[in-house]
């Protein structure tokens, strides 16, 4: 009952609900041009934790540099098995869709596929965690998580991973759940959580001053890459997150030294509903 009364994540970015915000002091001086002008995402490694990436799909422009497949294995201590992704395919198209969006924004970013979906539903959250851990430990700079888990028993596990990423200066970009209910890691404060807004311009995003979901990016009726070199038109917060991941890749490409909280500040300053303080 309580959950039904809660506003849905994406409604916070509807034109009527958006709040105009002020960036105070020097934060107001951060511009898009400063943040990512001239950047192509070159030198930035972006992991897409998802259903795989179809690496020869034209939408990813040959930028897939590697990948792994994480499968559930109840016999091992970690409960997962990690193998190189030799198949280079996408079970559904969802990971390719995310990779394609990131590539559009940051054409020279290096893409890595972390395939965490498999037939065994019971191990799904552990596969997801295993994939995230791999990405944290294997030199990625930005991790796109258009997946989440709502299982309370893994709250601690994902929190630990989110903290590990934060302290390694690694940015996690997580899609909010598509239905208004809790999901991890999107609700942790150290990640960038993203919901969909109705806009079409890939570089237009908004900041929400009433978290947990902090940013809104395009994700409604967007045309995305899909399985078998096709495209579809689809809707979901899943497609909003890679827009922000792509922009973060651009920022990291230009300012490699920025930490997650600094990147969040830059994003806040560059949000379409944020304006510099008027000079007195």
């Amino acid at each position: 009952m309580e959950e039904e009364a809660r506003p849905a994540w994406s409604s916070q970015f509807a034109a009527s609900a958006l709040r105009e915000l002020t960036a105070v002091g020097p934060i107001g001086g951060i511009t898009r041009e400063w943040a990512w002008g001239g950047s192509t995402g070159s030198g930035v490694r972006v992991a897409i934790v998802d259903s795989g990436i179809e690496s020869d799909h034209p939408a990813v422009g040959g930028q897939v540099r590697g990948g792994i497949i994480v499968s559930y294995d109840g016999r091992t201590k970690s409960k997962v098995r990690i193998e190189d992704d030799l198949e280079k395919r996408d079970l559904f198209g969802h990971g390719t869709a995310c990779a394609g969006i990131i590539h559009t924004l940051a054409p020279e970013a290096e893409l890595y596929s972390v395939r965490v979906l498999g037939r065994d539903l019971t191990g799904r959250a552990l596969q997801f965690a295993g994939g995230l851990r791999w990405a944290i430990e294997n030199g990625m700079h930005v991790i796109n998580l258009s997946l989440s888990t709502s299982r309370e028993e893994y709250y601690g596990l994902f929190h630990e991973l989110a903290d590990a990423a934060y302290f390694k200066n690694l940015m996690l970009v997580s899609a909010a759940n598509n239905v208004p209910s809790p999901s991890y890691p999107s609700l942790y404060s150290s990640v960038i959580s993203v919901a969909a807004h109705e806009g079409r311009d890939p570089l237009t995003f908004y900041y929400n001053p009433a978290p947990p979901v902090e940013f809104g990016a395009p994700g409604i009726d967007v045309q995305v890459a899909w399985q078998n070199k096709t495209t579809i038109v689809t809707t979901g917060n899943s497609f909003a997150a890679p827009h922000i991941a792509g922009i973060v890749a651009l920022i990291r490409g230009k300012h490699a030294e920025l930490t997650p909280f600094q990147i969040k500040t830059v994003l806040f300053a560059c949000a379409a509903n944020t304006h510099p303080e008027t000079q007195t």
Partner: protein
Amino acid sequence: MNEATPDASECRLAEGLRRLVRAIEASGRAILPSSDDELLQTVVEAAARLFGAAASSIALVDDAEQMLQFRVATGAGSGEVVGMRIPIDEGIAGYVAMTGQPIAVSSVQEDPRFARETAKKTGYVPRSILAMPLVCDDRVIGVIEVLDKINAPSFGMQDMELLGIFARQAAIAIRASQHYQHLGEALLGSIRRLAQEDTSAEMQEVQQVLAETAEAPEGTDEIMALADIFGSIGKLGEAERKACLQILSAFSDYAHSRPRYA
């Protein structure tokens, strides 16, 4: 071990158990929908109407076989889709079942493979799909799909949110129905086996246990009363169920370990 021989008390026991079976069957009929599919059918019909969709269907997850089986459908192509089984790592419904995330897709026909395969199976290719997981106790138990929004090219974010609320209610109803059915089947199965007048080892054990309590057949009233209490506690919520389970486990441990006097 007591040596068990078919005697008058055993016959009385068998008769008592048969009465219990009849009683459970009778009460089961009162509380269960006559079948799971009937409940599911009402859900898809309501969904199609609520979302202005040309068709709707529900597929349930078969964990053991890692398949999705379409159980009910309404509208275009429904005759063909019911009974269809797809591997859980295929298609839009598979994606939703695996990730627990809903997805809205329009221009489905742009994926030629999807269109061809779906058309081959159902004779119907939707233009737009909204697919939502049916989640219960953090587990995806199935997927509900609404197809082809009438008077609009695609399902929007608002449809997604509404279907999310709808699916939550549907999942709870489906889960409850499945629980009752499984519980009922398990109870009936085991009691029916026992009620048959056999002298198997199982029967001997039961007789031994019952022989230790006075007026064994009359114990059925207590069992029924216990079942009522379980039922009412079960409906209160997870915390109550857990507390009840802990209390019962503690009692069970105690009961099994206490000294018994011949």
